[in-house]
């Protein structure tokens, strides 16, 4: 009997939780706000699903309800991607060391 592909995805999921656990504990507390904004930005990778919904459903007979939801989700996720990464960048630019030291 073959292993269900779902099991593979579940394995990836659980291993990623562990990776996330160790990586996030090593984040310095002073960067916890940028951590939130960057995790927010990367979770917008959900745009992948939105693009599939928008592009793949409209191939034959124009728009349908599914592609409309896809389009809406693209806008929302795009706000998040650009907003999230840029605001993180803006914050990180501000973290500087003492002048003249090193």
């Amino acid at each position, binding site marked *: 009997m073959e292993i269900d592909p779902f099991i593979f995805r579940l394995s990836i999921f659980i291993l990623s939780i562990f990776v996330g656990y160790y990586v996030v504990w090593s984040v310095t507390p002073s960067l916890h706000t940028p951590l939130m904004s960057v995790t927010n930005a990367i*979770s917008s990778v959900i745009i992948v699903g939105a693009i599939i919904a928008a592009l793949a459903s409209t191939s034959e007979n124009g728009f349908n309800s599914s592609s409309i939801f896809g389009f809406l989700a693209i806008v929302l996720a795009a706000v*998040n991607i*650009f907003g999230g990464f840029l605001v993180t960048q803006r*914050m990180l630019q501000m973290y500087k060391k003492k002048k003249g030291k090193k």
Partner: protein
Amino acid sequence: MISQNLSAIFYLISGILFILALRGLSSPDTSRQGNYFGIAGMIIAVIVTFLSIGNFSNTFIYVLLLLLFGGTIGAFIAFRIPMTAMPELVAGFHSLVGLAAVFVAIAAFLNPEVFNLGFSGNIKLASLIEMSIGAAVGAITFSGSIIAFLKLRGIMSGAPITFFGQHYLNLFLGVGIFILIFYLCKTQSEDIFWTVIIISFLIGVLLIIPIGGADMPVVISMLNSYSGWAAAGIGFTLENTALIITGALVGSSGAILSYIMCRAMNRSFFSVILGGFGADNSQSDSKDKKDQKPVKSGNAEDAAFLMKNASSVIIVPGYGMAVAQAQHALREMVDKLKKNDIKVTYAIHPVAGRMPGHMNVLLAEANVPYDEVFELEDINNDFANSDVAFVIGANDVTNPIAKTDPKSPIFGMPVLDVEKCKSVLFVKRSLSPGYAGIDNELFYRDNTLMLFADAKKMTEDIVKNLD
């Protein structure tokens, strides 16, 4: 059009880049590089999706235009937002992720063919469960974040809203969702799918309204976590590795932050979620006591004199500093002190402010070098050897009662030992108790000098007096 296997590998790569993005945040030096990794991962994921669909008709142009449209709004917000508004910005962004997850789930439910999930009315069982969980968590994230946003923005009162039977109602609705998803799987009924989403929106609202202002760091971290789990749910539906990895990363990141915040308040996660902290605390008690105890109050001149004659000063910022936007004035004050060869450091309590790391960002904005800013456990022993503690906008996190009175609601919470300093300057608008609704014993100590004023105005006055 590229093959499924190849695109799966690219999605894996973008997942790894996201891990590196978080890894970069372990130190400010590597953090900017980390952010570039994140951006690269996102670009790869989007391009691979376009290539794997291979539909470059007119619709593709619309998609690009919408991307640019949303992107422009996002960029505009990112550049315009003041740093003090960061908590509500993050809450707002979480709501968008949540809603996007709901929309993608709806699209997948209405048109399962394009996602290879079976046919309308006959969707694969596993996919149906995954997408309804994704939609439900997404909807909770959305409405919960909207409430958090309104509370942080001050549009809605930060006071907890509680009513009789609230927790039972939540429990009832939560169980209801699972029963509905069960029936959804049996009947594939569209009506049930919509009902699940609507009830989830309702749960999101009910979950956040009983939680008060100072518990917001926990709420924001929790919603951060939810947005990750929602993404992971959708990732399983779409069988997309990038989404699954990201969802797991974000989910665990938010969960860890919630844990850190709860620990810093010595409260269990459940007591925060159940809410209503300090709402019905016997306020009259503390008011009676207040009249009896003497308080020393001073002005900017006294404060300037004290600090000028000190050799070391520790600054303790709190939410009040953010509200008054006093960080720049504070930095000016510190510059003057340093010119007089006074050692100045900053002490930050993990829950100071309205989100994790809130104070650090504000100080960074005011050009305070990050190596002068210390966390609670790193600096707490230094108070005993310092001359002046300058408390600006913080309250409960300095209350010594947390160490002495087992009956106090904040007993056991780790606090900054400011009272061990030779003298304490406490900038505050009035003697009113802080969020926990309890009196701060510190106000009545002999070595405390209260400076009653707006944080920014007081700091500016001190700067003038330091010349």
